[in-house]
């Protein structure tokens, strides 16, 4: 019997998008924890391509989530969010630069460590 995963690329991408959305709706995160491993395991992406593509998808997912949450609950603290984004932007610029200089395997292990941390935080 064939794999139960959808076989056509567009269907796989749709499944990744839907799953990422589910986690975004459930946990208020952008879905990268779902997108990156699925792009690696389902599409054979290298870690750099998977993480870069994930960020592009997260822009759209986060936009929708922010609009949805804001519309339903009206509780996005815009000023605080914008101010705190400034140091976060510094972090992401540095992080992408560092990522170009380390092995893809190291990126995978960092990602695994992040998932482990998330799991521990959720269980506690």
């Amino acid at each position, binding site marked *: 019997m064939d794999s139960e995963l959808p076989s056509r690329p*567009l269907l796989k991408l*749709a499944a990744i*998008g*839907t799953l990422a*959305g589910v*986690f*975004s*709706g459930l*946990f*208020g*995160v*952008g*879905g*990268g*924890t779902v997108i*990156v491993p699925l792009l690696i*395991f389902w599409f054979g992406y290298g870690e750099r*391509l998977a*993480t*870069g*593509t*994930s*960020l*592009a*998808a*997260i*822009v*759209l*997912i*986060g936009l*929708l989530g*922010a609009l*949805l949450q804001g519309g339903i609950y009206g*509780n*996005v*603290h*815009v000023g*605080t*969010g*914008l101010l*705190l*984004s400034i140091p*976060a*932007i510094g*972090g992401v610029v540095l*992080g*992408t630069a*560092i990522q*170009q200089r380390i092995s893809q*395997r190291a*990126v995978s*292990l960092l*990602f*695994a*460590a*992040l*998932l482990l941390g*998330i*799991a521990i935080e*959720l269980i506690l």
Partner: protein
Amino acid sequence: MNELLAILVAVAGGLAGGLVGVGGGVLFVPALTIFLGLNQVDAESTSLLMIVIVALVGAMRQSGYGNVNVRAGLVIGALSPLGVLIGVVVANTVSQRTLELAFAALALFVSFQLVRRALRLPA
């Protein structure tokens, strides 16, 4: 002091975004609740605003490095609304603790798979 810690955690969230391709919400939310006193729901909403900004900057940098499949990213992003709605409905019907434990189990499984795969690859 709390503001300084919030800034440091925000930097760390951005770093995580750049290094492993997540939006950073996993760190932004605690920064907003613990150090800036937002409640959980407000923090998650505000975190999404930060995620959009950080992911946009990160995606542009990664695009410059040649590491973005724009079409795949757009398809994934565009098809997420259905999932978001499913997630919101599920979040309102299943207990938070059950969700947390389920997600924790999934995260552990994927983490294990990534390590196994990484160790098989040539350095």
